């Protein structure tokens, strides 16, 4: 499936921008999961330091059930961590807003098993607010954009989006164009 069929793009519609979270906001998740992945190796090194005789006992390493279970549990732990990392990535990556010259489609992934998709015509936009907060937000220029509409979904919010002020301006320009188009149709 491509993005055009996902949003059921109309013939006259053109995708202007796909806004996602800034990649830098995913770095803290990567660091957290690297630490989680390192735990079994840190414990093994710690065990070597604290119990050198136990950890280098050939009989214990090669022949005991304890060792076999440790390897199975260690593998299950590492796979669980990497799969949860993937789930976090899906949650991060599928929070997006597709902006066309006619409407905006806001998709929000909540965990791995819940997703909300909302859309509103651009001419229904009443107010757009952009906000950059915090040290990293100021350095990497990402922040929040809140869109107030007169539609069924009154407020759209996209967090950690790069260049929020530029996105606000883009949305207001497109909304203005769309309002002119709809006024001309009446």
């Amino acid at each position: 499936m491509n993005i055009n069929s996902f949003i059921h793009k109309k013939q006259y519609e053109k995708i202007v921008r796909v806004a996602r979270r800034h990649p830098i906001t995913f770095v803290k998740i990567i660091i957290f999961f690297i630490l989680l992945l390192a735990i079994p190796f840190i414990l093994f090194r710690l065990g070597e330091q604290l119990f050198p005789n136990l950890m280098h006992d050939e009989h214990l390493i090669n022949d005991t059930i304890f060792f076999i279970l440790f390897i199975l549990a260690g593998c299950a732990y590492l796979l669980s961590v990497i799969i949860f990392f993937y789930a976090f990535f899906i949650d991060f990556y599928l929070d997006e807003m597709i902006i066309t010259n006619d409407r905006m489609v806001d998709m929000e992934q909540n965990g791995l098993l819940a997703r909300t998709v909302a859309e509103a015509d651009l001419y229904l936009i009443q107010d757009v607010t952009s906000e950059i907060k915090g040290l990293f937000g100021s350095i990497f220029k990402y922040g929040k954009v809140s869109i107030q509409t007169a539609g069924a979904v009154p407020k759209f919010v996209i967090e950690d989006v790069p260049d929020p002020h530029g996105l606000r301006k883009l949305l207001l320009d497109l909304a203005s164009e769309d309002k002119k188009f709809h006024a001309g149709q009446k």
Partner: protein
Amino acid sequence: MATIPLYIFLFIFFGALLILSIFYIIGISHLIATANLTFASFIITLAVSTFIGVSLYGTWNILRDTNWQRPVKIFDMAWFGNNNQFSE
């Protein structure tokens, strides 16, 4: 004394693998269903798949000579009985 064969733990491991693989497939299906097959998602999926492959290969490599039929003692009354080594 109660014992179970070692392969019971292997089956538990396979059960955990099955659950994790369901999560993995759900993740990939979300990427496909929402038209998010981009270079970034490809790189992350490739990295995750490689990590899974290396972990499973490493585990198989370490445990390939294991005799899975051997019994594992899970309960023994002697564990709660008198233990002379501490009284000496």
